[in-house]
């Protein structure tokens, strides 16, 4: 009959109206600034840098290898590695900036980082009053603790932690073996006074990195021998940024 469709429609809206007063299903609005939805674990916004321990800057896992800088599609990461007084890189970023107005949240930097030191954050309220400097996130702002990482993505952070622990264990074993070998070599070389001069610089660089990140040197030891050597070998040559140097 004419009008029955209208009555059906009216019934639907009436159900909505009445339901909105008692049935949360029919009033799904979350009044945002006061109430918030819990974000899904996989939600991501912008990258941040993970640090271990208490000190945000000293504990950074990042070794300033610049892999993320090179891979970032819109080129919004800018890194200057830290150097000691003699001008040698110390595997720390001195400047680590991400331009949030350019970052597209693609997560490629996270994928390429060999040290699990850059991860995607869940902060989405990044409004600033200045659209140039205001949206450039500096090292201090980007550094967030591992605890925070555990808070926002427990599963992923736990995986990363076990992986890092495993790598650390392997590295320690390797270091122990190396130390044993070295001790043997040293014992053998003790007879001859000459080789002491050659081992000295090698042992000098290791302690320089060691105090900076307590958990780090062991992790850094196994894989990054190519990267550390390249960054050490070409500090001047790397200054003009190549568009993409995929290793």
């Amino acid at each position, binding site marked *: 009959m004419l009008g029955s469709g209208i009555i059906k429609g009216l019934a639907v809206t009436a159900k*909505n109206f009445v339901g909105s007063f008692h049935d949360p299903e029919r*009033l799904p*609005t979350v*009044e945002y600034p006061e109430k918030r939805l819990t974000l899904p674990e996989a939600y991501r916004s912008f990258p941040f840098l993970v640090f271990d321990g208490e000190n945000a800057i000293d504990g950074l896992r990042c070794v300033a290898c610049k892999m993320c800088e090179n891979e970032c599609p819109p080129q919004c990461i800018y890194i200057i590695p830290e150097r000691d007084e003699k001008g040698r890189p110390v595997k720390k970023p001195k400047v680590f900036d991400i331009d949030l107005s350019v970052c597209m949240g693609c997560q490629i930097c996270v994928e390429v980082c060999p040290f699990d030191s850059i991860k995607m954050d869940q902060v989405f309220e990044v409004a600033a009053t200045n659209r140039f400097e205001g949206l450039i996130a500096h090292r201090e702002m980007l550094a967030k603790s591992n605890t925070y990482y555990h808070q926002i993505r427990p599963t992923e952070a736990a995986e990363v932690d076990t992986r890092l622990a495993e790598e650390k264990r392997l590295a320690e074993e390797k270091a122990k073996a190396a130390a044993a070998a070295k001790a043997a070599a040293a014992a053998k070389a003790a007879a001859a006074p000459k080789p002491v001069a050659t081992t000295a610089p090698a042992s000098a660089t290791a302690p320089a990195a060691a105090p900076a990140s307590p958990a780090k040197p062991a992790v850094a030891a196994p894989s990054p021998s190519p990267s550390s050597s390249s960054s050490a070998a070409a500090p001047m040559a790397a200054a003009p940024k190549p568009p993409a140097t995929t290793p």
Partner: protein
Amino acid sequence: MTATLERLPLLVRDWITGFFPEPVRWLVSGLLAIVAILAVFGLYFAYLTLAERKFLGRFQNRPGPNRTGPFGLLQPFADAVKALTKEDIVPQAADKLLHFLAPCLVVAFGLISFAVIPFGRYLIPVDLDAAVLYFFAAGVSSELALFMAGWASHNKYSMISAMRALAQLISYELPLLLAVVPVIMLSGTLSTSKIVVAQGGWTFGIIPHWNVLTPWGFAGFFIFMIAAVAETNRSPFDLPEAESELIAGHLTEYSGFKYALFFMAEYFGMSALCGLGVTLFLGGWQAPIDILQVVPSYVWFMVKLSCVIFCLMWVRATLLRLRIDQLTRLAWKFLVPLGLINLGNAAFWHLSADWSGPLQIVRWAISAAVIVIPFVLIGRTLSSGLAPRTYRYAT
């Protein structure tokens, strides 16, 4: 106590006019009525906009405005401040005088129709003998103002919208009047206050003698409300301001407070038409049950008015906008024939007024059949071939 409450507005008026010398008292009391209408319906308008937004929100599963003040109660004032502080733009090519005049006139015409609505037992601004006639004369002129707005804007969208408004007005004025005529026939008067009095009384103290509770009255009310929605240009008949086709129709070239005035006029027009509907069909200020007469009559009027307006909001939240040909077809092929049949129905009801006993049941049955059968038949012919719709490409 009840009598005092009932007469309270009158007492206040007499108290105020008492301060003035005898010769100007009529003028003062007239002005007071205007001020009262402006104040009451101004505030009513303000909160109607808020209520509409809130209710529409609820109908669409969202809470509606709730940021300004507690529960968003200050929203109308924030809107008013916003409208007042916005720049008032007049297009260069516009007819400056008419462009300015249109919003003023549209509000004025919306307001003058309030003059003949009996808000309470003793509350009627002007008790005219030909009140219904006056009401429609005033109501129709507001469409003139709409056309003025469309014409003066010198904008093709405004113009098309104004044309549509006129087409819509002419189409729906007829069913509106046809729905009203039976009431006038049966109560034998054009005066709104007498029509309300004629609907007084209760059967067994609980069934009121409102016109809507008779077959012809129900059909009349139904036709009246559909036509009233169309007359006030509200969804689903809001063709003159169809945003998707005409930007904002006749409002396209208006900004700032003039824009707000059009909205005010729309709500005034809606309140006035619904007020007339309440007066003619829902017993005006009469209480629904005998014992509820302790509540003052003007409260009943406002309650009924608000209920009717709420139904309009409900309809607005539910239905889609019609196309212009569907709109006029609905008026000419459906509402006008039904209205004419209803006229005959009312005549039958009038002639069979002295039937009693079992004949009373026969009277009701005949009267109901006279209106239901044409409704079904016309509905069937109108929708034959239109439904159910088959979609060739979509599944």
